[in-house]
């Protein structure tokens, strides 16, 4: 279910109505603090993986909420689950669980076509 063959042309606009936000809702059900993110970037700033790669939890959260799942799929596995992001989040989002559930959700999507 990767865009029915349109994956070669990336839309420049976030088509909010067309985008699929079920993954975001799946995460929100299981980790309610996900809704508190204000995209301040503290998590991404302290991220162990950000030294080497484009991993940015802030971006991940925003993309999920807008429904841009392809971007998320690309970067989410880079996380080392070290937990520094959870220790700096000023809103108290359980960021480690968010990314853990995200990885679970995409695995389910790929394996069982949920």
């Amino acid at each position, binding site marked *: 279910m990767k865009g029915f063959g349109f994956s070669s042309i990336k839309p420049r606009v976030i088509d909010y109505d067309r985008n699929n936000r079920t993954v975001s809702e799946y995460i929100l059900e299981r980790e309610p603090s996900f809704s508190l993110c204000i995209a301040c970037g503290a998590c991404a700033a302290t991220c162990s993986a950000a030294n080497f790669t484009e991993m940015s939890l802030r971006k991940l959260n925003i993309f999920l909420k807008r429904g841009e799942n392809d971007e998320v799929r690309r970067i989410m596995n880079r996380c080392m689950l070290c937990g520094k992001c959870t220790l700096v989040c000023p809103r*108290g989002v359980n960021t480690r669980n968010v990314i853990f559930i995200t990885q679970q959700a995409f695995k389910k999507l790929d394996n069982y076509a949920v």
Partner: protein
Amino acid sequence: MQFNPFVIPFNIGLYFIIIYCVAICIIWFMDLSRADKLRLQRGFFGKPFTRSIKEIFTESLIHRKIFRLNPVLGYMHMSLAFGWFLLILLGTIEADIFGEKHLNPPYKAIFFRFFNPDHGAEGFARVYSFIMDFILAFILSGLMIAIIKRFWSRIVGMKKTTNLKTLDRIALLSLWLIFPSRLLAESFTCGAAGSGSFLTGSLGSFFAGFLPAEAMAYPFWWLYSLSLGLFFILLPRTRYMHIPSELFLIFLRNSGVRTGDQYGSYAEAQVYSCSSCGICLDKCQLSRSAGINDIQSAYFVKGLKRNDDVYDISLNCLMCGRCETSCPVGIELGALRMIQRRAGETPEDMKSIWTGYMRERNQDRNIDKEANKKVFNYLQPEPVVSETEVLYFAGCMTHLSPGISTSMIKIFEAAGVNYHFMDQNGSVCCGRPLMLAGKDREARELIQHNSMAIWSSGAKKLVTSCPICLKVFTESYHLDVEVLHHTEFICRLIEEGRLTLKFLNRTVVYHDPCELGRGLGIYYDPRMVLYHVARFNDTEFERDNAPCCGGSLGNIRLDSRKKTAVASDALNDLARSNPDFLITSCPLCKKTFRKVAQNGSPEIIDIAEIVVKAMPPSQKEEFRHNKNCQRGVKYTVVK
């Protein structure tokens, strides 16, 4: 008459359970790995055999460990277990000596009084009857405690008892019926025959005064037999399976078998050995501070037994080890949780108490389509550093707590250690958080990366200030260097005289971090270091009984508010004696406690920081002076 239809339920139950237990033992034995089979054989026919027999006596029957934790609870368990054992043993001997012939079928021993109503009038038989009655009274006293405990748990000093499912409840009821019905059946029979000892006899004659004792006895014998039979038949699917399982487990454990990384016979035996005693419930801080009451080890193990989906339960655990250290059966609860985390969620069709034996549970359900893809191939190999003696790995969490790393640098400099700060520019995680989340394969990649850097450095020692990193370095890395925690290293520096400290006139309480204390058994070195610098306040919350700070990386599900609650309660316990400092040796503990400390009292610092405080100023000044001489800048000590 030597037979009566009422013994049939008992016979059915008894033979069923004997066959079942033997079959289970054979199946479990066959499913052991070859190495474990050999271990068990050696253990069975060697020295561990006596150890096992002794342990069966002291733990399964007398329940010595439970006694130590909670005398009333221990008495209750002991009376039922040991009492029933004696009843059966002495009853068999009774039937043998006083019966019509030797080697009777079991029902003769259990229902002895029915078949020999006049027994016990005088002589040795009278004494023997007394003993049997005494044992029955002993059991009944414990039973009363058990019944009251179910409704009012505080009487045994426990705040909670385990919640039961339907099958458990029926089994519990039948267990509770066994001994009272024996009492009444024997009493009525004795009443009718005018025999019996202090309990059965007196009760019997009391009843005989106004009731038709002979007629009333018979239904109670039926009840006795039925409750026994029902209990035996239900036993395999209830928590009472722990009775036979624990025997098997004790032999296995004393032969050196351990749980390991995969689910196997030993794990299965442990799961069935849980008697749901409930001791782990009160020890769990999530229950006490965060109001979470469905994830404790007793429920987790029960869920495993019933093939429930325990994946979420296994993730919502601090992995602090408090339940494991207090478990009287010695179940490796941490290892079981880790196995479940690796296994992932249970598929729908497996979730039933009747399906799925161990082999199905053992299946690797993680069909990973990208199993060969490397996730962390973005990591560049680290530059090779040579000519160092000591590598210092601060760890991810220490970067958020720079007081610890700067203190360690000061200590290294003051002691003249040839060190290299391995992750000064940001670290690659040690890999343990990934392992705690069940992602062993990904963790291996990180382990490989870090190992390369350590191997190529040529250092002799690896010092880390984070116990989480230490545990994975010691257990999962294959390093050729000596791995030390910074407290161990500082202790050595003090003993070698490379560090001189003055005594601070302050009181401290030391908090044993979960991963360092219960996880690795390092209790002595931090205390030795602290004895040189400050006065200790006594606290009961230390060593095995130390609370978890709540910051755990082992718990993925716990939200911020509940973590704060756990941390507050733990801090309140530790700081009861109002010390000047609370000393931790884990950066995560330090950050978690600092978050909840009100008004900075007590001040929470790491052991490295208090050591720096205790260093004479000349040492600190020299260090800065040396560093700044290179720049030709005049510098004055600010602190």
